[in-house]
């Protein structure tokens, strides 16, 4: 989980991800950030995320992002 938060902080250092319950709804990450994040996740965990899984519900919290990584075969 910390690894995910660290990545988010790298992309958007100005936001406090710990205090948000929905990054998308709260506007913490936008479409450009999602593309950056997917690239980072795929590289770090050596996975390929299925396009079908790229939906807001999988990116709104660090838990859900971690779950997506697991679902895509990543070791997290």
């Amino acid at each position: 989980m910390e690894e995910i938060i660290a990545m988010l902080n790298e992309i958007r250092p100005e936001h406090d991800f710990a205090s948000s319950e929905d990054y998308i709804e709260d506007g913490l990450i936008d479409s450009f950030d999602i593309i950056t994040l997917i690239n980072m996740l795929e590289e770090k965990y050596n996975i390929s995320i299925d396009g079908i899984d790229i939906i807001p519900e999988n990116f709104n919290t660090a838990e859900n992002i971690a779950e997506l990584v697991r679902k895509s075969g990543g070791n997290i």
Partner: protein
Amino acid sequence: MNINFLDIFENTVKKKINDTAVVHRESSVTFSELMLSAKNAACSLIGIIGNSVNVPVAVFLPKQISTIIADLAIMYSCNPFMNLDVKTPKDRIFNTMELIKPLAVITDEKNKAFFDGTSYNVILIDELINSGKADEELLLERRSRLIDTDPMCLINTSGSTGTPKSVALNHRSFFDFMYWSVERFGFDDSFVVGSLSPVVFDIYDFELCLMMMCGAKLVLLDASLASFPAKLLEGLNKNSVNFIFWVPSIMVNIANMDLLNKIDIPPLKLVWFAGEVFPTKQFLYWYDIMKNTMFVNMYGPIEITLDCTYYAVEKRPDENKPLPIGIPCRNTDILILNDDDKLCTAGEEGELCVRGTSLAMGYYNNPEKTSAAFVQNPLNTAYPETIYRTGDIVFCDEFGLIHFCGRKDSLIKHMGYRIELGEIEHVLINKLMLVKYCCAVYNYSKKKIVLYYEKDSDISAADFRNAIKTEFPAYMMPSEYIRMELLPRNANGKIDRLLLKKKTNEED
């Protein structure tokens, strides 16, 4: 005789009265409702701004139905609208406002705080719509004085000196593009447009014209959907969208994710794309799956109103060759000029220049930039005739098809946005004073901006991002920062941009 888009809109409304004009999420508006709201708002607006005509009015709203009402109301007031991106940093918006000096800015309750502490005339769209009452006589009288070379809208684009340039486009140039579109591709009221472009793109203005002139239905798709292609395709299906005009990036993503094989294929009959090069491999993915869809590669800078050349893909392209940008749209002439300002022969590379009604009127409040790009046709010494020099290097093959080669300068297209890399450098060096020397280059295959900077010690990416976000919208943010003790210099002692560009694009 068509002079302005309002007269033609009124004719459309008569035919389409209770049909849906615009859909956004769960809300929608009919043609007659849209016209009435726009007229009400226009009359309130005229009450505030008085007799001024042909002076820009800014719109600071996200993409929603009321934004379209605001744009139409401004047109009804006989002034050009200038849409602003609500996600752009303050300084950049205020730089633009300072240059353009709009009569007023229309926004909503949620966004009005952005202008707190400024002296701009800030007006709320809901108040405009609700407080006004359409005065047909007033609107008609005003409109009767409007001519087709009066400006319809202003579109902002990146400028190398740190302040955006604002392109002024008139009604006539939009008609010119619409006449060609309708004649060539048969746009009519059976078209349902999947509108994904931000309201600051010229594609959005074209979609407005399709609605006003042809009676097409607009489905406003949230920009946030661009990062969720599966949802986006669902949205197309749900709304029976049959025409899209998008930038290739999103279509490339869909191809890379193989989504067309996993989700119902939307009922698209016509797909236009423009704004950047569509890699042929990913294009073929779309082409091979969507057998009943016509694909068209469009090309053109904002300064000539949407696009000036097109390539309708009628046979399967060779996977190893880029798509041509094709042939001129009707009533547009393309001149390819070499360094001596002579016409290039077949196969010879030169600068693409445009001649015709489609030319913009220039950059608003910026005569120097205007006279540098809008120049006398060097082939014509008999009478004044303006051409626009695009700065794009192209060649024409033996079949008469034009092919794009690259740029003369450091302008790039990234996610459909036009960016002067020099602007990023200028702000980092002179305004933020983060570095003394730097060079921004574009990685074409990974579609990202890379910044090389000269310094003794590293600056973290987070520090760069924190500083840059106060000046630039997200799409202008470099994704990679590379420190060098000394940037390479060429024989004249200037930073060797070409070498860095080569290095960046060779590594992949």
